[in-house]
């Protein structure tokens, strides 16, 4: 039996809201294998984005272990976590999160710039990705000159530029019209087909049901963990 790419073991996270503690992740146990396509669904406040941020090392658990690609990330210092994030994880956000003063090419190449990679290699890699994503004509455009679908493709290029093992998408179609949304999902699914592990947080049931494995969250717990075409499992 192969080791999971991502292993969450008894992960807990609690926020203080006023005087009251709010348990946003409650004893989460989850294994994700390499190359899986998972959707995480659930009502607002159920903890799905927090779970995604936890896996993306943007947040630290209060307790529990999070192992990514054999690295016990819960024990890492800030600098090391940033390195793991940069090299292993790609993020796609609902509102694209592009820097307005940078061109599409520069935005997409940002993680490589942070890694200190030479500009020639950066340009080559971004050109490849833009060509793959059908936006090769938009390299030198500023974000304000691009449509929503194009912006999200630039964001996907940025997420993919370091060839990560894991792609995390938080409501990737949330700010797009339906057609652009489906186009973006098609792109993400094709990347998953090529072997990347894809986790998508969504409110959209139709979109969530396209994933091979579907997680449902309620009150900080994974209430359902089912695989497409199979029955629902009650999860931890």
């Amino acid at each position, binding site marked *: 039996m192969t080791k999971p790419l991502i292993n969450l073991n008894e992960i807990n996270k609690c926020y203080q809201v006023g005087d009251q503690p709010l348990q946003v992740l409650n004893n989460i146990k989850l294994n994700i294998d390499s190359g899986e396509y998972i959707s995480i669904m659930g009502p607002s406040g159920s903890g799905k984005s927090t779970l995604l941020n936890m896996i993306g090392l943007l947040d630290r658990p209060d307790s529990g272990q999070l192992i990514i690609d054999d690295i016990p990330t819960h024990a890492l210092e800030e600098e090391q976590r*940033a390195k793991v994030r940069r090299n292993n994880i790609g993020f796609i956000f609902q509102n694209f999160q592009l820097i307005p003063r940078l061109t599409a090419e520069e935005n997409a190449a940002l993680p490589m*710039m942070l890694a200190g990679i030479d500009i020639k290699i950066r340009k080559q890699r971004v050109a490849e990705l833009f060509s793959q994503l059908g936006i090769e004509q938009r390299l030198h455009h500023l974000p304000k000159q691009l449509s929503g679908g194009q912006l999200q493709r630039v964001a996907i290029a940025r997420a993919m530029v370091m060839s990560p093992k894991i792609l995390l998408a938080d409501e990737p179609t949330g700010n797009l019209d339906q057609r652009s949304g489906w186009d973006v999902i098609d792109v993400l699914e094709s990347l998953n087909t090529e072997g990347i592990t894809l986790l998508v947080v969504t409110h959209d049931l139709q979109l969530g049901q396209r994933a091979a494995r579907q997680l449902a969250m309620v009150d900080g717990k994974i209430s359902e963990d089912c695989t497409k075409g199979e029955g629902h499992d009650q999860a931890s």
Partner: protein
Amino acid sequence: MIKLVDRWQFSLKVMAMYPGRTLVLVLAVAIGVSSVLLLTSIGEGARLYINKEFNSIGSDLLIVLPGKKQTSGGSLPFYSTTPRELTWRDALAIKQLSNVEFVAPINAGTALVSAGNLSREVITIGSTSDFLIVRKLVLAKGRGFYHSEQQRIRHEAIIGSKLKKSLFGDARAVGQWLNIADRRYRVVGVLKERGESLGLDMRDMAIIPISSAESLFNSTALFRIIVSLKQKSREEVTKQQIINLIKQRHDGEEDITIVSQNAMMDAFNNITQVVTIAIGVIAGISLLVAGFLIMNVSYISVVKRKAEIGLLKAIGASSNEVQLLFLQESSVLTIIGAVLGVTLGYALVFTSNAFIPYFSLAIPLWSTLTTLIVAVLISIGFTWFPAKKASSLDPVIAMRGN
């Protein structure tokens, strides 16, 4: 780790994105830097001016003063009280010493000098033919005193260019008569135009033979004796010889002070350097003001760019990287401002020197280097806390822009 060239480009893009902010900060630094340079250049200019004045009369001079002073260096006492006067005879004895080349005894006072209806009260110096030599004074017209003229009272005078202009206008002065107090003197020479020399305006002065001055001022007491040495290397020995000689002539009492020109120059240099540093530090306050401005603008920048900071952290920038990016931004701004300030400072000094050639300003190299370093340190120091704040932001919260 981000490459330095990428940091620079990233910073330049931020600056281009906010041109108004950039302009204000660059100008603030530039004004601060140029203020420091300009003010230190005035101090340095004063120091060089004093050095030039000293050097113009040679560096091999000793000044013998009546009265014993316990300290050496610093400014000379204008008047002093002493039981025994320094006299012309003392000066003649000093001249016999082997390392002494010229000796100019000075008997000085102020007197009303007049020619026709015109008169001026000026400093009148009684001395010998050596006076023009040791003070490196050059005659524009006429001649100096003959050696023999010192020995007896001769009513002859050499006058400065300004005094000549006041009394005789453009007419010829040599050969004309003038009155100093109630005595008549014939003008035998006019000094070439020259500015102040060691605080004395040589242009507005009359020089008469020492014997005539003794008679005019009714005193044989010398104001001082200027001694020119043959060999500068034997200065200390000669000083001691003069002290011994005068002590012997003054009944065993050591009642003179000898100041070397170098000691005076060093004292002036020390004073002007301290003054230059002091005014540089005062001008440095403007750099502090620029620093506060940078700090405030950096705080605003952190608030406005929260989402960007969150994103950078989300895609793999460490807290240190984020902090470095902000520090780099302010450093780039400061370096551009400082380069502009240095250019501005040098341009102002260049312009001033072109219009006021007799008092040249000079920016000392240490001032330029120190100002640049201080400007960058101030910028880093004042951006430290905003940059720290940026680096400590939670990426998830920051990306929401809250």
